[in-house]
């Protein structure tokens, strides 16, 4: 008897659960109320455990509470996640102390480690910031992995085929990468608004297409293929030449740490996007579209136009991440160049509840895991343990609000039945 077609969009993050703490006694949504009896009086009690629960949840809701509270909650759940991950490591016979020590040493143990961590965090953060934009606009583009790949391709064309000075090459490469990523994402948006194809599906499938495209371009007679320059055995592998030294991303020396340029860019992007979403007129419109497309329509927001723009923007950021990978980490295009950074970046944005500031913290954590994980192998600990810890962190960050929401729903159901 539920209204047919009243499905919720996919990938709803928990804070968007359409529950209503105050109006919990509203029976107009209960399934048997077709014959519209007048709803009971509303309002009144805004205290009690239900409201407390709502408040607790509200503190996790993106943008609902001051940043300090969000950071505190983040740190709490982060340590919880690391703890769980270490316990899991211990259960499989590895000393938690050694694991933790290696992770620490490899990420923030020295200034060199810090540089590694920031290098790893930069593309993750760029992807996450883009994902925040489109998720806030209610467009569930999940194809960042493909858009990263396209960004790497775009940057590759500039790096290997444009003859310019270093800085110019780097600027052009980022621009080319952003354009390529945006264009790839826009395909999914066009499919959605033109043909009604679910953007979750199309953006996902475009990931695999992007991989094929990359492989074609770096193999055989592809324009990005490495001809080998006469080196023995060269010219056969599916890979590009190495990035010339002039196009390698420089670092900036800050407080004894060589901070990679890509990370500075990503950080600036995160701050700008957070400000844009909170204060700019266009940012408001974006959020309105994401929160309630029906209302957006009545105030003159065109979902196809603004939605496509948001998707393209997220693609552009993912593309820029591709450039950062090529010129800052891999220095070469090969079939796995995106190395799941698109997926991880998306995960960061979702686990951060589409909050740009929290995304920065989470990107650093992910970066630390990547950098620190590199040391584990030396002590005979499988690097996979890092993935387990990362997963535990994500679960710890996502679980509490989900659990709270579930408890709250149960309470509501009880109070309606009573």
């Amino acid at each position, binding site marked *: 008897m539920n209204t047919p077609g009243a499905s919720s969009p996919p990938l709803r993050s928990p804070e968007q659960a359409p529950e209503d703490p105050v109006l919990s006694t509203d029976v107009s949504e209960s399934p048997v109320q077709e014959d519209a009896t007048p709803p009971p009086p509303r309002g009144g009690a805004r205290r009690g455990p239900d409201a407390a629960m709502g408040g607790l949840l*509200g503190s996790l*809701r993106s943008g609902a509470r001051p940043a300090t509270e969000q950071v505190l909650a983040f740190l709490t759940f982060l340590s919880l996640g690391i703890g769980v991950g270490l316990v899991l490591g211990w259960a499989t016979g590895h000393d938690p102390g050694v694991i933790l020590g290696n992770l620490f040493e490899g990420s923030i143990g020295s200034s060199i480690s810090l540089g590694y961590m920031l290098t790893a965090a930069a593309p993750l953060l760029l992807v996450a910031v883009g994902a925040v934009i489109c998720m806030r606009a209610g467009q569930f583009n999940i194809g960042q992995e493909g858009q990263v790949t396209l960004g790497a391709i775009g940057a590759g064309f500039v790096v290997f085929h444009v003859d310019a000075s270093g800085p110019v090459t780097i600027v052009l490469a980022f621009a080319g990468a952003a354009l390529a990523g945006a264009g790839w994402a826009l395909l999914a948006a066009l499919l959605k608004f033109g043909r009604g194809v679910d953007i979750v599906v199309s953006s996902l499938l475009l990931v695999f297409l992007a991989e094929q495209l990359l492989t074609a371009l770096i193999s055989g007679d592809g324009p990005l293929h490495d001809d080998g320059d006469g080196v023995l055995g060269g010219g056969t592998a599916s890979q590009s030449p190495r990035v010339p030294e002039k196009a390698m991303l420089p670092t900036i020396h800050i407080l004894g740490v060589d901070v990679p340029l890509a990370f500075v860019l990503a950080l600036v992007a995160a701050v700008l996007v957070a400000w844009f979403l909170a204060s700019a007129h266009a940012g408001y419109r974006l959020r309105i579209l994401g929160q309630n497309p*029906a209302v957006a329509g009545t105030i003159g927001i065109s979902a196809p136009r603004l939605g496509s723009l948001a998707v393209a923007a997220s693609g552009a950021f993912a593309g820029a991440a591709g450039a950062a990978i090529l010129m800052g980490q891999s220095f070469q295009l090969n079939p796995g160049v995106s190395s799941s950074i698109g997926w991880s970046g998306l995960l960061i944005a979702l686990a951060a509840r589409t909050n740009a500031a929290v995304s920065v913290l989470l990107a650093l954590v992910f970066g630390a895991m990547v950098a620190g994980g590199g040391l584990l192998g030396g002590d005979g600990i499988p690097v996979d343990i890092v993935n387990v810890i990362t997963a535990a962190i994500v679960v710890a960050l996502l679980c509490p609000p989900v659990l709270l929401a579930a408890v709250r729903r149960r309470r509501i159901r009880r109070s309606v039945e009573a």
Partner: protein
Amino acid sequence: MAPALRMAGITKHFNGVPACFDVDFEVAPGEIHGLLGQNGAGKSTLMNILLGLVRPERGEVTLAGEPAVIRDPNVARALGVRMVHQHYSLIPTLSVWENVVLSGEGRVDRDRTIAQIEEVSERFGLEVSPRAMVGDLSVGEQQRVELVTCLIDRPRLLVLDEPTAVLTRQESRSLFTMLRRLVDQDGCSVVLISHNLAEITAVAHRATVMRGGRVVSRVIPAETPVAELARHMIGRDLPGTADVAAAIGADPAPVAAEPAGPAPVPAGPGDAEPVLRIVGATATHEGTRALDALDLEIRAGEIVGVAGVEGNGQQWLSALLAGSLSLQDGEVRVHGQRVPVGRPGSTRRAGVGVVPEDRKTSGCILDMSVADNLALAGLKSLSRAGVVSRRKLHSLAERLVEEFDIAVASVDQPMRSLSGGNQQKVVLAREMSAGPAVLVLAQPTRGLDVGAVADLHERMRQAAAAGVAVLLISSDLNEIMQLSDRIAVIYRGRIQGELARAEADPEKLGLLMGGVSA
């Protein structure tokens, strides 16, 4: 012979409000029994109890003389009671026979199911192609699929909820032919829920009229004047204009003077150019008729009420004026200017403000603050160089909260935390503060308490007095009668007729609402 169905003393409350109170309902074997009533009369609740979807607090159900305890729809089906709901429960991506199988039991046997479908459609003249994809079928064909699904079980009691609401005249006629065959040949009894008076008169052997959760009369429609049926359905307790004025404490003089001509309104009805003019608006939504050549005009300072049984296009009229429904035919003009309806924000730019029926989903944004919600429509004027000024936004919000007496602790409070009445006020404040030429309110008082209702009504009168053309879409006839200068009755997507308030009486309204031209 024992009646096919007897429901005795059925009582059911929802949150303390009686949906059915001490209802006695009886259907004879082999008859088509009409069940008439407005929204909220208790028809659906009664039938949901019969189908086992709702448990009554009191009362007994007897089927063919046997007491029956119907705990869920499966029990109902086993006892031979089936229902075709107003909204079909078909899966569009499956074929007809697959949909039929889904509602049955046991093993999936395609050939047997197809044979059964063909046999039933042959016997009752229900043309259905078992292999067709349900999503490709018209609404009428989908209904036939639902009917076939029910009839395969050879039910002894079939309930149809507003079956003709979505059908063409031709389709309705063949449905009734089929129903007659069903009762004559198979001795099945049919309960026909409808508010279409002509239909009940034409098909039903007997009819029960419900109002406010009680049975108000039992009639033989063929021998009862339609006007009397209408009166039973609407009731006699509609407030007259004078009573209304007294009841709400308004100065009776201008209200009483209204029919005579220009009272407190700047432009008297009749002489001025209408502010809003809808001509021949026709639209479909997902294959069903939404609006059907609807004509409506409102002048400045006038309150026009749109009455009608729910589901007759009210929501589409409201969507049209919110700019979210595009027309296949016809046009909407505001101050003589054609509005490109269907484009986002088109009607708002033309000066139409809408307080939508479902404020939670289409009126406001629950996860944004009260201030944001109040500023929603005017963000541009609050921004400079593309940046929204928080100071301006706040001062606007504070002003509106003060002016509209919205109970909030802070304008930064999330919209979600407000009561329904206050949410409604926020939406109203936003729409009215934009200085609209036309103000549309759809079911504005639904779910509000008495005080909030009185306040809202007062604001609507003030808006009209200030020269706004007000359109009130409501299924609450009392509200319509209290506020409207003119009442337009909507029926199946068109305006069935218009009445000045002075000439509106329950009988005329009832006839129009039942699809009969007054």
